[in-house]
């Protein structure tokens, strides 16, 4: 599958696509558990979708500190730099 360039906008759109919500409903501060009603395993399911889209993996050890969509994006940004 063709991978996308990771930007906040493309990340936001992919998160929205995975959850079946409008992109406008997803902000950096949007809480994954409280506002998007994802459970802890759902974060990994979302992560899998993002790995496919951007080719960037976030280690399991860091996932527990992710609470918002912004946290998720920033973790992916960090690991994109590591992988690059």
């Amino acid at each position, binding site marked *: 599958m063709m991978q996308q360039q990771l930007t906040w906008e493309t990340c936001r759109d992919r998160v929205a696509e995975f959850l079946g919500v409008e992109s406008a409903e997803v902000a950096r501060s949007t809480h994954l558990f409280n506002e998007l009603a994802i459970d802890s395993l759902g974060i990994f399911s979302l992560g*899998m979708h993002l790995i496919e889209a951007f080719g960037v993996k976030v280690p399991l050890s860091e996932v527990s500190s992710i609470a918002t969509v912004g946290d998720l994006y920033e973790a992916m940004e960090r690991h994109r730099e590591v992988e690059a």
Partner: protein
Amino acid sequence: MNTAPRTLDEHYDLARSKLRPDHTILMDEGSPISFQEFQVSVRRLVQALREAGVGAGRIVGYSVHNGLPAFTLPVAISRLGAACQPLYPMIPDEVRAAAFVQGRASFAIVARATVESFSAAAATQGAAYRILVLEDLLHAEDAPLPAAIASPEQPFLLTTSSGTTGKPKAVFLSQRNVASSLAAARDLSSYGPWSDDPDYRAMIAFPQSTSGVMILLGTAFLGVCQVFTRSLSPARFLEIAHAVDADAISAPPAWLEALLAVPVAPTNRAPSIRGVAVGMDFLSSSLLLRLSERFPALEGVANGYGLVETATVFMRWKGSGKASFEGSTSVLSLTPGVGNEIRVCDGEGQIVSFGEDGELRVKGPSVVGGYLGTSDGFEDGWFRTGDIVRSVDATTVELRGRSKYLVKRGGKSVSPLVVQDVVDRAPGVLRSAVVGVPHPLYGEMVWAFVVPVPGVSFSPGSVMKTARAELPVHMVPDRVEVVDSIPLGRGVGKVDREALIARGQAILQSLGV
């Protein structure tokens, strides 16, 4: 006094007392077979088998193609007080030869065209049974039918079940089991006053399956003309249904999907179809709505539920009118008039309250005495179905899923049926299948494999939106995978879950997660 037939012979004798000889009981590829012809076939077979030495306590294996003898053979074998072991003729010779040995058959009936290869296979198995040629039996002299001798508790039909564990097990259905199944088949094919019409005709998709024979004989003895095809072509099936003005169809859901995939033509519209009897697999409202578009006269649907261990159907859902097709088809009621009873039990075997979930258990005339060689799964005559249901009342349950198919996600059980029911209703979904794909972190992930409606723009997000709106968080699919088709297993075409799970595992591996 309860006069319900307790043996196949009693069902047959009842039919003989009620049906006219010129009544069309079956149609083979559209060619009518009268009840007179049916009776002559039974009598000739009884005569030939008796001369060959078939009698009480003997087991007769047979494998014959679709056609009148496939349905008169069990009736004839029953009349002699013997038991039968039917096997599909498409099963390889060596496998059939060995199965008849394992079944302790004294006789094996095969068609002349295959007798040479089958005999060679039987010889390599050291088979002691006598091989009889079907065509020879059919030309025996027509002699009066002897009186029935089989008792209700006598073993009659040897078959195999996938069992609640998925491991094949041999099962003997008694005469009473079979008689109950015929009665349940009648209930399933009864949609209302119109289906009592003497000219009512029903098409049956898999007449030679164990449930197919029961449905065919159960309804044919009631006076319903059962129509079958020799080929396994959905297009041919529809052409015959059209040509004979079929009123109803009996088929598994996967076969109905195959019918819907056949392009509509003036010669296959089958506009007279008003009833559909389904069984063997989950029935979605999406399929029902598409069927009602394809067959505008469709008004009655019956979804049969049962297992080999319960002589097939013992519970059913019935819908009448299009409004009922939009609801859940998983609320099942005990088939009336057969005499079975049900319980919903927790893990300790205690009966749960109405509204709670547990395992469905059943006891009664439909339930077999046990597997050959083991009593696992049976307690005091109660059979543990392995299916998880919600108890509604004493005779009604809501099916949640087979316990072996339940997805164990993060310590919680997810019913794939419940998820699939929701996924099927999402915009742009033609059909779907939901399975658990093993993953070390989850235990199992909930994967929805979706076939989109052709020509319509589809986004997996539409499924997630619907699922998130209607399901608890832990039941929302972890992944929506778009596929061209849902793979089907062999036999009557149930969803091939193993193939889907393997596909999911391959994707996980490619992603390195």
